[in-house]
């Protein structure tokens, strides 16, 4: 197991380096004049030239990338062009908020999605199933921001139950302010999980080993929760992991709509100010977060799928066990 985890971590490192290179390259072409942004429009040409030199703007591409990576490894993402604040510090202050929102959304989606999907599959073609399919179809098609607007109109502006935006301070206000963003972010994700759960349970229901279990005299409850779910979980975990990326994407929109002080909103603000360093820092941070989640998914895989576990646990297996790269 430890060997498997270490191998996964080692595999993730080059991908992360590649990702920073990619994002750095893309943003390298952003037309911006950071020195003027920092110094203001009244600055002299000499001052701007000196500032450019200090920021390393005049250095060749690879030198700049190397310097950036050197800083990144030490946790330094440079300075914001907008207000000369440290990007790393700003992100550090906001990352927790993004994590709170993203985990709440994910948790909401899993807690709702998996049981609904199982119920729907076990009672295929029933009224419950039809209703679930209809609602999930709707929820996967609803644009996040529109859904958010409707929720805000109803629960904040009309009913005054919940705050329309911002992040509350203190536990109860925090939870209250978290409800609408969580539903906004998690609903589509929950619908996707429910649909995947349904179809993978339906796939498993047809397998012979389910009949074998029934033929043993096992109760239907045990058949569902022990024999079906454990097998159906593998594709569900894949979907949860793969779509965490769109959850992070969704959190950018959700944070913007609800004025949630997270990294996602920071990206959007920074793009409008052409604050390249800030954009770069936030995108890299969210990419690292995404990679960590995917890593976690890989590890969960190994825990639930004995075919991976035994590859690494049993000594007599081949040394270079094939890694499963197929989609």
């Amino acid at each position, binding site marked *: 197991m430890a060997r498997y985890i270490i191998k996964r971590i080692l595999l993730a490192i080059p991908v992360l380096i590649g990702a920073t290179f990619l994002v750095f390259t893309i943003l*390298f072409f952003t*037309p911006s004049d950071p020195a003027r942004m920092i110094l203001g429009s009244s600055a002299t040409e000499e001052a701007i030239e000196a500032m450019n030199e200090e920021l390393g703007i005049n250095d060749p591409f690879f030198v700049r990338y190397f310097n950036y990576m050197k800083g990144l490894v030490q946790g330094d993402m440079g300075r914001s062009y907008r207000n000369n604040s440290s990007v790393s510090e700003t992100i550090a202050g906001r990352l927790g908020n993004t994590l709170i929102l993203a985990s709440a959304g994910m948790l909401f989606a899993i807690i709702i999605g998996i049981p609904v999907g199982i119920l729907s599959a076990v009672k295929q073609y029933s009224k419950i199933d039809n209703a679930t399919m209809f609602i999930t179809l709707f929820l996967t*098609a609803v644009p996040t921001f529109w859904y958010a*607007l409707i929720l805000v109109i109803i629960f904040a*502006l009309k009913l005054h139950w919940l705050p329309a935006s911002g992040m509350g301070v203190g536990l109860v206000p925090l939870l209250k302010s978290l409800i609408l963003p969580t539903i906004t972010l998690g609903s589509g994700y929950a619908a996707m999980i429910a649909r995947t759960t349904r179809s993978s349970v339906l796939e498993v229901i047809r397998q012979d080993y389910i009949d074998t279990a029934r033929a043993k005299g096992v109760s239907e409850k045990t058949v569902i929760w022990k024999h079906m779910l454990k097998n159906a979980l593998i594709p569900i975990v894949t979907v949860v992991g793969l779509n965490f990326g769109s959850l992070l994407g969704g959190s950018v*929109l959700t944070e913007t709509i609800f004025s949630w002080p997270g990294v996602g909103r920071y*990206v959007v603000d920074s793009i409008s100010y052409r604050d390249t360093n800030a954009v770069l820092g936030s*995108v890299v941070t*969210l990419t690292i977060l995404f990679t960590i989640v995917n890593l976690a998914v890989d590890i969960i895989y190994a825990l639930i799928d004995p075919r991976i576990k035994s590859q690494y646990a049993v000594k007599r297996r081949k040394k270079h066990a094939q890694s499963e790269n197929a989609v």
Partner: protein
Amino acid sequence: MHKAKTQFDPAVKDKQEQRTLFQQAVRQFKHNKMAVAGLIIILILLAIIIATVVIDIVTDQSFYNEHVIKQDLSLRLAKPSAEHIFGCDEYGRDLFLRIIWGTRLSLTIGIAAIFLSVIIGAPFGIIAGYYGKTTDNIIMRFMDVLLSVPYILLAMAIVAALGKSTINLLIALSVSGIAKYARIARASVMVVKDNEYVEAARAMGANDFTIMFKYILPNALAPILVQLSLGIGDSILAVAGLSFLGLGVQYPQAEWGAILTAARTYMLQAWHVSIFPGIALIISVIAFNLFGDGLRDALDPKLKR
């Protein structure tokens, strides 16, 4: 020589078989009422797009400028009425017409982005899957990198670099989707490439290019098409989302996401400006998702029952 080849060419027989498979898929698809409903909605949306294009060409955009772009502040945020069935937006423009004209940008960018992603991504996937080993490793590690940046964030970064415009939005979404379709194409090529007709083609002296695109691609196409059609809905939502953030379609062009951005400010005074474009989006995305689901069920023999 050439004649003799066509006679024994398995592709000839393949084609016949494919037609029957295709017919089977069509029959299966017709059976699925939801999917047919999706297809009908898609066709209606297509008709709307064509109609707006024709009107713009015939009237030399004067209708567009007169009714979709021109402001009339006396009708600011007017409620739905007989004259303006969806009401008017914050500049007094007819919301119904803006939504109708918005169809073009809202849908075509999303659809075009997916097609571009497939056209660029799939060949990489096919080459990787076909050659395997080092080629596969190099291509797929690059795709891993592309895939490691969340889709929307990658698109945002590209728009940030290129500047905010409709074309740049299209480029950004296309690039962000490449890796997904490369992976799908690779996986389905890996399934197909060991079939005997591929061996047979090789034995007959077909070169790699012919084998990949004439023998493997047609047989590996189904999963790619299914994922393509299932991706359109998300792509349309991404266009709207980025436009909502101000990173996509720019003022004063009509696009559903952009209309919603403006609507946000007035959501209490004028609910209709938020509701109608949202419904248009939902209906379109549902239509494409239903169509994609139907296509998957029709093409995936595993699910046939």
